[in-house]
């Protein structure tokens, strides 16, 4: 298992077709069509409140869309979620905006949580995996600290280490650099790029940080008015003539 974890993982494709989501009559996603290739790093950008995090929650299955179809690795999302964990053909990890580390557990316990709870690993294997992923996020030696003792950037990196510990084929990031200063933002960006280089997992990053998206993503999808306005490479984005994209680029430049 550990040998497998050390190898380059294969990403899975993600497909969304006509995904709609509304809350009490307020339409947030008005029909999302999106295809992410295996191993691709896609950034979904858009202004605050455009439903980027909502979209991510549909993909990971925390919420179910009102309409539309989501397939991960060729499997319908509902079908995938219904599978017992041990029968799932691939693993998904999500890094939450708040990091979502369990406050009562140490860094090592947080990182090894899923491995411990789902069984199949000896304590020595879990300790070795934990050590390895913490080294990858440059947090070796923090195993015994509690989340409350870490800075915001460190908590984010522990959350990424927790995601890496299960060797996922698909990693979703919800605003990984929110509330971080430019230096920490750059560190997280470099880390995501390194994960991509070392692993090959499919990665979807939701962010309103355009420089981050440009720096790390293969393609950037602009979410506006409940739809994907366009999904282009970073180079194409700069030259885009799409009015919603232009508006977002203008707003981002003003912000920053």
């Amino acid at each position, binding site marked *: 298992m550990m040998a497998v974890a050390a190898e380059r993982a294969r990403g899975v494709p993600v497909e969304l077709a006509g995904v709609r989501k509304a809350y009490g009559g307020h339409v947030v996603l008005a029909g999302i069509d999106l295809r992410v290739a295996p191993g691709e790093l896609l950034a979904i950008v858009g202004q605050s409140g455009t439903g980027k995090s909502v979209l991510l929650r549909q993909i990971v299955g925390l919420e179910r869309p009102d309409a539309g179809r989501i397939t991960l690795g060729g499997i319908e999302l509902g079908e995938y979620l219904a599978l017992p964990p041990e029968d*799932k053909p691939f693993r*998904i990890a999500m890094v939450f905006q*708040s990091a*979502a*580390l369990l406050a009562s557990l140490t860094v090592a316990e947080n990182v090894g*949580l899923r491995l411990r709870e789902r069984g199949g690993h000896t304590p020595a294997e879990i300790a070795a995996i934990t050590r390895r992923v913490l080294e990858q996020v440059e947090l070796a030696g923090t195993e015994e600290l509690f989340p409350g003792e870490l800075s915001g950037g460190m908590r984010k990196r522990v959350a990424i280490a927790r995601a890496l510990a299960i060797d996922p084929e698909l990693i979703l990031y919800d605003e990984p650099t929110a509330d971080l200063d430019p230096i920490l933002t750059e560190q997280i960006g470099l880390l995501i790029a390194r994960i991509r280089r070392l692993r090959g997992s499919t990665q979807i990053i939701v962010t309103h940080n355009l420089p981050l998206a440009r720096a790390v993503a293969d393609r950037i999808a602009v979410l506006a008015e409940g739809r994907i306005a366009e999904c282009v490479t970073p180079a194409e984005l700069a030259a885009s003539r799409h009015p919603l994209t232009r508006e977002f680029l203008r707003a981002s430049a003003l912000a920053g």
Partner: protein
Amino acid sequence: MAVEALGHAPRPPGVLTRLGASLLDGLQILGEATRLFFATVRAAAFVPADRQRVVVQMVRVGTDTLFIGALLSLFVGMVMVVQAADQVREVSQDILGPIVGLAMTKELGPVLMAFLLAGRAGSAMAAELGSMTVYDEINALRTMDIDPVRFLVMPRFVAATIALPVLVLYADFIGVWGGAAVVVADPAITLPVSTYFARMLEWVHFTDFVVGLVKGVVFGMVASILPCTFGLRTRGGTEGIAASTTAAVVWSFILILVFDFLIVRVTFALD
């Protein structure tokens, strides 16, 4: 313009509308609590594997309640003797033992300890789970294929359900001895303490302890499942956590009293 704006202003909901909304909300909470109860009972099959988490929660419940529970029971036993001695001064102080014994074992021990558990440990459960819900920790567990009911709710539920009957016995014991202390120390009471205990043993039967223990088990379930329900349905940041915690305690108190009444009715019907 102002008049026009006033004309379009939505009218505040009437009393009946608000009452109906509260009723529906209450029914929804009860529904969620019932569903969580059954999910937790199913997850209780994993107690042997998760015993360490259960023990941790039992220690927390004990730490939260033992000292204050002792203090509460001691003074309740003492006050009961003082009050009852005055009431029965024209009759016989012989019944002081049975009064304290029966009141503590059948009613006050279970209800006091349940309120204490709901107020201390229950509020902590609601706040902790509420915070975990608001800050996506529960969602993080879900994305890791870890069942939050088994991981978080079940250990708290089992710990409270086991701990409360033990706390009830503890409260009975201390309350009875609190009463005995007043019997010994109060010059207005002429009853020998040996008679206090002898009469108590004549009147308090094993079934009275059983009723108290049954109440302890049921109240333990109520005082843990409701806080967990409120914790898991928390929305809206810090204010939401505070509102959930308060609501969890209030609802627990009310349902403890409702179940108390139901158990009393059933035991009287069975007698």
